[in-house]
Structures are given as C-alpha cells and as structure tokens.
C-alpha cells in the first residue's frame, strides 16, 4: 500500500470507485497466493526424486536377493544345486517387477502425475 503510484491511479480513474479497485486487487492477490501455494505444495507431497528412486530400486533388488536366497537354501537342503536357485531367481525377478509396479501405483495415487493439459511447457526438459 506504500506504492507511490497508488494515489495517482485512483485520482485518474475517476469512474472506478475505490472499493471496486480494492476488490479486484484482493481477488488478484488471492489468485496469486493460490498459485504459489500449489506450487510449493507439490514438492512437499511428492517425496522428492531421490527418495522415489531409492524406494523403487531397493524394492526391486530386495526381491531378487530374497528369491535367489530362498533358492540357494532349498538347493542346499534338497541337493539340487543349482536348479532351484535359478528358478527362484526368476521368481524373485518377477516379484521385484511386481514390487516396483505396486509402489509406483502407490506413488501415483499419492501424487497424481500431471495430465497433458496441466503440464506447463518446459524448455529445459526438451533440450
């Protein structure tokens, strides 16, 4: 409100009353604040890229390790080395993919990916 231009503008725009000008300015400020709030909210809800990567990666690797481990122990027990380990490695791989798909689904549910209409054209990403 300490803007030096303010009084001059209200004098020249004699037809617009002071209150309607104020209302317009309040509406504009509200709109600007909403946009800013939404922009700041998205990275907070989104768990940050590093975290997403760590989560998906560890889910995938853990399933493979567990699958191969189970197969190895079964082989030791049944003396069928290395066949069960190979089979369980494949099963672990499938379980890893399942884990990744599930956690990606959960992430998408928590933070819906932007649709084509919402997406702001971004020059940096295209280059």
């Amino acid at each position: 409100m300490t803007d030096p231009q303010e009084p001059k503008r209200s004098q020249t725009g004699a037809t617009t009353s002071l209150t309607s000008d104020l209302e317009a300015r309040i509406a504009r400020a509200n709109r600007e604040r909403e946009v800013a709030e939404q922009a700041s909210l998205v990275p907070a809800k989104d768990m940050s890229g590093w975290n997403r990567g760590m989560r998906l990666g560890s889910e995938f690797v853990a399933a493979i390790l567990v699958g191969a481990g189970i197969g190895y122990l079964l082989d030791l027990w049944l003396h069928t080395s290395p066949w069960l380990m190979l089979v369980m490695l494949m099963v672990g791989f499938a379980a890893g993919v399942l884990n990744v798909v599930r956690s990606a689904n959960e992430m998408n549910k928590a933070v819906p990916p932007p649709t084509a209409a919402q997406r702001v054209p971004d020059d940096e990403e295209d280059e």
Partner: protein
Amino acid sequence: MADPNKVDPIHQFLITDVVPLGGGFSLTNSALFMVLTVAVIGLYLILSTQKRSLVPNRVQLVSEMLYEFVANMVSSSAGKAGMKFFPFVFSLFMFVLVANMFGMVPFFFAATSHIIITFALALLVFIVVIVYGFYKNGLKFLKLFVPSGVPGYVLPIVVPIEFVSFLSRPISLSVRLFANILAGHITLKVFAGFVVTLGGLGFLGWLGALLPLVMTIALTALEFLVAALQAYVFAVLTSMYINDAIHPSH
C-alpha cells in the same frame, strides 16, 4: 587410527567398546547412542507435555506436531483400525528420526548406518504384521498371497511371486534406511577429506579446496533432508504393511 592425517571414510562406522560390562559383553558406542536416542526422545516428550497447557508453548507444540503428523500418516494409510498401532509406528518414527539426526552431529555415531540395527527394526515390523495378521484374520491372512480375480491355473506361478514379494519387504525396508545413511556419511567424509588433502598443498590447494568445501556444505544440508525423509518413509511403509495385516486382500 594410526595416522591422524590419513583420510579414512569408513573409520566412523567402527564399533568400539565404551563401558566393559564383563563376561565378554560391553556397552558399545552404537548401543550408547541408541540409549541416548531413547533417553532424548523420552525426556523431550515427557518434559514438553508436562504442563498440558491448552495453548501450547513452542516446546509443547513440537511434540504435538510430531504426534499429529504420525497420527495422520497412520490413519490415512491403515485406517481407523490401524490407530491401534499408533504407539508402535510413533516409536519407530521417533527412534529412526532422532538416531539419524544424532548421526549428523560431528563425532556422534550414526546407529542407523549399521544394517543389523535397521534390519532388527524391519524384522520387528515384519513379525508384528505376521503375528497380528494371523491373530486378526486367522488363515484368511494367507489370502495376501492369492490376489483376487486370478484364474486357478495361474496360481502356482502367482503365489510364489507374491510370497517372495512379501519376504522382500523387511530387506528393502532395512537396506533403504541403512544404505541412505551409510552412503551419505561416506560421501560427506570423502568430500571433507578432499578439503583437508588439498588444503595441505599451499595456496593453489587452498583455492582448489573451495570446491569440495562448498560441496560438503551442500551435502550436509542434503543429509539432514535424507535423515528426516528416511524416517518418514520407514514409518509410512510400516503403516502400509500394518494395513495389509488388517485387510489382507489386494
């Protein structure tokens, strides 16, 4: 450490005896910092909420915010029935958070940088989920391994996959926390070591040392973020797994 000028990024994870207890047992630095973690959490929460003022002061507000944060997390991912496990999730969250933050203090030991600690926590979650799942649902808990709407002839393939996927949970839960803290601390130490090494090379070395110094400062901030984030992730996934124990069908 024999040579104090040698940069050894792994040295910080060395377990040493602090108080020998006799009989081959002793209080190690890892155990000491876990005890300190629990003591700090307990003292803070008890002292800050002692007054129970209707209009909280700043200290009490932090406790209330932590409470509400975890309560919202549990109720949103495990529902109202999951609130039974709120004390469990809250304890885990606070322990991991404070232990991670302790690790960020110079000369303090990061207890969560050892996989045996994080694996013990993850195994605790895993056992709670299994025991409560069978207690609440009986044999219906096994429906967790049989997705609904799958034709019978695919089940021999799907059930082992679901089983392995279930068993991989404690591994991924513990490895994620441990790897984040371990990798973060090593990176920090390596870059800080560059500053020391370059600083010993005279004027040009001083100039060169500026780059890793800036990097170290940036990484310290990142590590604080990771420490808080990993505690959050640990707690969120715990409440999701508890949700599976309460409603064992996908």
